[in-house]
Every structure is written in C-alpha cells, then in structure tokens.
C-alpha cells in the first residue's frame, strides 16, 4: 500500500548504514561495466576499421579489373596503337560483329570534373568515365613499341577514402594486338 508513512519509512531508509557500502558497490560496478564496454567497443571498432579497408581494396581491385578487361578487349580487336605523349592509348577497331571498322578508341585521364578518372571515347566524341568516382587514378602511362602492335600499360590508382599508409594498386601489363606480324 502506498501510504504517506510508507514513503517516509522508505526515505528514512536511505540513511541506513547500508547506503555507504551500496555507493562503493555501484561505483565499482559502473567502473567494471565501463571497462568492459571500452574493451568490447574497441574490438568492434578495429573490426569495422579492417573491414572498411578490405572493402576499399575490393572496390579498387574491381575498378582496375574492369579497366583492364575493357582495354584488353579493345586491343584484341584493334590495330594502329598510339600512345600520344605517353599518357593516352589510341587504337583503331578492326571490323567485327561488335565493332565498326575504323572506329578510333581513345583512353586517357580526364580533366575538370572527371579529374583522376580514366576516360574512354570513340571517334573523338562521347567521352565517358570507365572508373567509378571512388577510384582515383594517379597514373596512366602507355608505351607502344616500334611495331605498333604491342602496348605496355602502367596504371596506378588508389581509393579516394584511402588512409595514410594504405597502398595504392599498381598494375603493369602488356597487351598485344589481335592482328600480328602484318
């Protein structure tokens, strides 16, 4: 029953000898709990951290894999490779079911709002990115040998959210023309 005297009894009970012990107990308990929380939260934070790093690496690798697949496919059905001033790749498509003969394809690093993104254009128009905005392409170097049939590519890219010390992806590869030794 909730009577006046009952409440007063409860209030008086707060002055019990037990209260002091209770305060210490509570402080100890709070201390222990917060200590545990810090340890547990720390574990989760570092797990989240490493999974974000892994996620960034996956995104970066996917972007580069897409670029390499596209460049390789075009090169296999292309000829007349050119490297501009070393920072772009141009080629002419050979006729095929997927190709209009004599289409000129060009890969280069974009400028302005497309800065640090690898671009592709066909016949000098329709330049569009082939890397997502989360991938920052730092370097795209092209070297075509004297025969015009072999291309050496060097691409260096990092994730835009990369933290200090996170390694960028560096890929160096050679692509040979589909039509050789003419």
């Amino acid at each position, binding site marked *: 029953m*909730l009577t006046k005297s*009952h409440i007063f*009894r*409860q209030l*008086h*009970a707060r002055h*019990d000898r*037990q209260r002091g012990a*209770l305060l210490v107990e509570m402080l100890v308990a709070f201390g222990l709990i917060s200590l545990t929380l810090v340890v547990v939260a720390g574990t989760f934070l570092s797990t989240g951290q490493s999974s974000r790093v892994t996620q960034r690496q996956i995104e970066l690798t996917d972007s580069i894999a*897409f670029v390499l697949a*596209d460049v390789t496919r075009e090169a296999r059905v292309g000829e007349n490779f050119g490297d501009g001033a070393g920072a772009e790749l141009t080629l002419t498509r050979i006729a095929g*079911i*997927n*190709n*209009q003969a004599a*289409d000129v394809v060009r890969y280069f690093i974009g400028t302005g709002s497309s800065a640090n993104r690898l671009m*592709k254009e*066909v*016949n000098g*128009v*329709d330049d*569009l*990115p*082939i*890397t*997502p*905005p*989360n991938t920052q392409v730092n370097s795209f170097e092209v070297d075509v040998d004297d025969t015009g049939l072999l291309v050496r590519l060097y691409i260096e890219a990092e994730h835009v959210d990369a933290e200090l010390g996170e390694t960028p992806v560096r890929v160096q590869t050679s692509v040979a023309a589909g039509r050789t030794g003419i």
Partner: protein
Amino acid sequence: MFSPRHASATQGFTLIEVLVVLGMLGILAGMLAINARGVRETRNLDIAVDEVVSTLRQVQAWGDTGRSVPAEVVANGDVSDAERYDRGYGVHFDQDATSILVYFGFGADRDTSRVAKHNRYDPDNLVETVQLPRGVTVSDISIDGVAGPNELHVLVRRGRVRADEETVFLGSHSNGTSHNYRSAAEITLASGSLTRTVYVNKYGLIYAD
C-alpha cells in the same frame, strides 16, 4: 536495495518503483524501435542497390556474350532460329515501381519498323521480374545527367546498335518526349527518407554511390 531495515524480507517493489522501471524500459524500447526502423530502411536500400547493380551486370553478361532468346520465343515462331542470337538483354525501370524488369530486345539496325517494340521493354519480352525489398522504390531516373524521365530501358546488345554503342538507353517522359540512344543513366532508389543512386554508362561502367 530499497528495502528498509525494518520492513519484512518478502516485501516487493512499491508501485512507484515498478512504474519508474516500466517507464524507463518503455523509453528504451521506444528508442530501440525507432533505431531499428532506420537500420531496416538502410539495410533494405543497400540490398536493393546490390540487386539493381547485379541485375545490370547480369544483362551485360547476357547481352555481351550473345545468349540466345528464350527457347519458347523461338518455338512460338516470333524469332527465327537464325535470329535467336541477334538480340540483347535489357532492364526496364519505371518511376515509383517496387520492382525492375529484365527483358530481351533487338537492336535498332535489325528492323526499323519494330524498333520501338524491340528496343524497349514490352510485356511480350519479359524474362524476369526482380522484386525490390519491402519499402524500396525507384524514385528518380536521369539520362545523360538530365532528370525527369519516368521510365528507362537499358538494353545491352551484342554487336553494334549504332556505330559506337554497346548499350542503348531509352527513356520516356510522361509528357511524351523520348530519349533515344543516350550515353549514361542514373537510377535513384528510395527507402523511407534515404536514397542511393546507381550509375551505368554505355561503355559498361556500373557503380553505386
């Protein structure tokens, strides 16, 4: 812990104590429920974005590799046996829809009189309906950076459609204007107040923000 020294050991909690505890529990439960709704919306949106991206990649693979039109279409006589590989696969997006549609279609250079039907989604050409998670809708569509179309057809076709294109983007506004053969499209998905956007362009780049 509130038991007074002179009270009996079996005394229970007072009404106030019980009410206070219930109140606190109620507040906690309320906070949790609000939080859980946000978490669910976020998760459903992420799942939807993954579904859209993987559906686009699926039709890209089918379109690029020359997958045949479904056998029953050939059996119906709608497509001759020789033509069954001469087509593409596409995804159709409708504004405010809760699902996206996979269809097969033909390139513009095949038969101009049938362009409209064969580049675009048509119920006859439906392959598969991909249901988006609960509460997720296609909220906005933009083509070549211009928002406004209320539908979008992304067709990936083996062989060229126009001299430099692998992917066809077709869209329509509710006022009747059409976009044909554009370069890139963005599809925005909404879940509650959250949105995410999927980008696709004709060179095959697909990503979500």
